């Protein structure tokens, strides 16, 4: 499996409230609420840290799950979030965008 990098899409608006991460698409104003795993992935998605490191360092310690299974699930989740324009997924590091519009508050 090749390395994957994930980055938050700067075109979305995001807020964490009461432990819930809510994200609104800047494209069509659809509102998403992320579960715990997706929230961890979103918060760690800096474009520079490989997905396998995010899984090892952030997701596996939170959940009782095999690293290989967790990585597979995380990749599926990342691609699903990418299909909603919430995350960007690439096989290369993703440089930070100039816009900070999607910065977490």
């Amino acid at each position, binding site marked *: 499996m090749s390395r994957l990098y994930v980055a938050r899409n700067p075109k979305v*608006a995001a*807020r964490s409230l009461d432990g819930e991460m809510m994200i609104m698409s*800047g494209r069509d104003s659809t509102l998403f609420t992320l579960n715990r795993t997706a929230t961890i992935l979103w918060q760690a998605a800096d474009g520079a840290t490989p997905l396998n490191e995010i899984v090892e360092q952030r997701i596996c310690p939170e959940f009782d799950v095999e690293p290989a299974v967790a990585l597979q699930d995380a990749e599926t989740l990342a691609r699903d979030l990418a299909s909603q324009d919430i995350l960007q997924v690439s096989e290369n590091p993703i440089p930070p965008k100039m816009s900070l*519009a999607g910065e977490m508050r």
Partner: protein
Amino acid sequence: MPVKITTSDPQFSDMLVNRYEGFLSESPNSEIEFDVDLVEGGFSDPDADVHVSQNRGQWSLECGDFCAEWSPASRRGWIRQSANPYSIDAVLRIVHTLVLARQGGFLLHSASAIRNGKAFLFAGVSGAGKTTISRLAPADATLLTDEISYVRKTANGYVGFGTPFTGELAKLGENVSAPIAALYLLAKGPENRIEPIPQGEAARALLANVLFFAEDQDLVQSTFHSAFEFVSRVPVSRLTFVPDNDVWELIG
């Protein structure tokens, strides 16, 4: 927010005067201006959905029964529509959402009323009870709207204003305003009760009822964050009610 409408058609002008009675002013100042060009038909798809976009600072509004442009810089624009009251109503709602979003406010699918100097908002989808709660309002409550509430952010908090945008009640709101004391999410049930809800749920419910028209990233961002700001400053509760007058004993 004063709006100036110019039309060369006296009958259309009279219709607007009747429709917006109570919201008319002799003030020469306006924050939004429109020239209305009346046409007979000419729209390719009368059932087309509204489409709002921005290009080089100019807003373009298109729908099945009208098209319009408006410039935030000059605050002027034009509307091309047939001689009906609904198209201009839609344009005014849309432009107000654009202007309010920049100021931290929004239009909300909700009824609202003033009681004891405070404004109360009652939000919900169609059928949730906006018209019912408005109809049940006691004599000492002033109805702001039974359909679309006008929320402005001020230095001292959020203020609810009356609007001429009506729902099933078909009754104009009063042209007055008051600080917003609470937002209630309406639900019908076997008894009247108010339950506080977590801020996350409140924000989700608020965003579900905010009027969004523009496919514009900056506007979505600002409205999204405005909703969170609102729920951090205004109490949001679920109001379950039996359709009877007693529910208003819980309000105000």
